[in-house]
């Protein structure tokens, strides 16, 4: 089984900023990512939950992005300005991927 090194970047981001982030990713050639709903959480700005909410203002998404290790720095340079003044967190783990021709 051939596996290739990759980085798994997981960005917890305000839903209201999600489109801005993914537009930027695509603009910068990062065309692979998945968006998972986040139902609630807690951070420096307190605890929250999406139950019964109707506005997009409160609520977060997890954007998971697998990329080649050598592209990590470029990616971070691109996304950090979007995140800077906003709440949320970013974590990066080492991963292996199959079918590397897709990245």
């Amino acid at each position, binding site marked *: 089984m051939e596996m290739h090194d990759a980085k798994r970047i997981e960005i917890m981001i305000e839903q209201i900023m999600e489109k801005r982030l993914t537009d930027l990713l695509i603009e910068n050639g990062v065309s692979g990512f998945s968006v998972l709903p986040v139902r609630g959480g807690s951070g420096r700005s307190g605890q929250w939950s999406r139950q019964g*909410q109707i*506005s997009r203002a409160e609520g977060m998404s997890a954007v998971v992005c697998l990329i080649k290790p050598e592209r990590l720095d470029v990616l971070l340079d691109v996304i950090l300005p979007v995140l800077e003044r906003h709440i949320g967190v970013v974590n990066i783990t080492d991963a292996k991927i199959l079918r590397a021709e897709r990245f």
Partner: protein
Amino acid sequence: MDTILSLAAQNLLSPIILSFALGVAAALAKSDLNFPEAVAKGMSLYLLFAIGFKGGASIADHGVDGQLIASLVVGVMLSFLLPIIAFGLLRTITRLSVLDAAAVAAHYGSISIVTFVAGSSILEAQGIGFEGYMVAVAAAMEAPAIISALWLISVKGGGEARGMDAGLMREIMLNGSIVLLIGSFAIGWITGKEGLAEISPFITDPFKGVLCLFLLDMGLVAGRGLARAGGAVSGRAIVFGVVMPLIGASLGLASAWLLGLSVGGAALMMVLSASASYIAVPAAMRVALPEANPAIYLTLSLGVTFPFNLTLGIPLYVALASAVIGG
């Protein structure tokens, strides 16, 4: 005075207010009662569609007059003006930073469509008619306040507002609620009485019942916000949350009088001016002023002003409108 009290009592004991109260009580008691996000969103789409459609159909029925344009213009002006008053008041009586005060002010210049819906339900229950285009006025009053607030920051220098770029502007003008409200208003207008007859069993008959469930959910959200907000909001800010709607309502009444609106139209103009946004504006603030504290503006608009208007405010505004316009 008598009428006000009896109106307030009657209002407080209606199913829609009691449903809201049930939600607040359940949240404060930490019950796990809750509505899934998708259901809450579904109900809000229904209410917007129904209220827009009925407004449009009533225009088709009664025809347009010069007042429509005048009312829209006055509504936009109020929405630009109210944040400035709110900002001044906040900076005088509370210790909020320029940034937080501007963010709160934006909410009070904009409107709460659910408060508007509750107001029109109460008018209907009392057999008081109103201008169908008030729905359009509501839509027109959603956005201008945001521009005022950003302008206040650029003048008062309270931090770096991410300028009002074209993207944000379009996002605000085309946010889902405005588009649905205006769109269904247009559909109601075009299809008129016949269109209304076709879908009336959906948008008219069950309307109040859906509103009850929706307000139950709003009560849950408001109650949880109150419980959570705790120290975030000072006593003086809470005073603002009650005084500001009264100021707004007064300006709304004056405008309605100038415009020559009916009693019902005047009451709704007061409701719009008095109410504070908690859907469109908070979302815009998260983009334009991410450093402003959401706990403050959501607690004030959803936790203080919304319940105040729903319980005491609306009957007061109806009574005042009757006295001033009807008398």
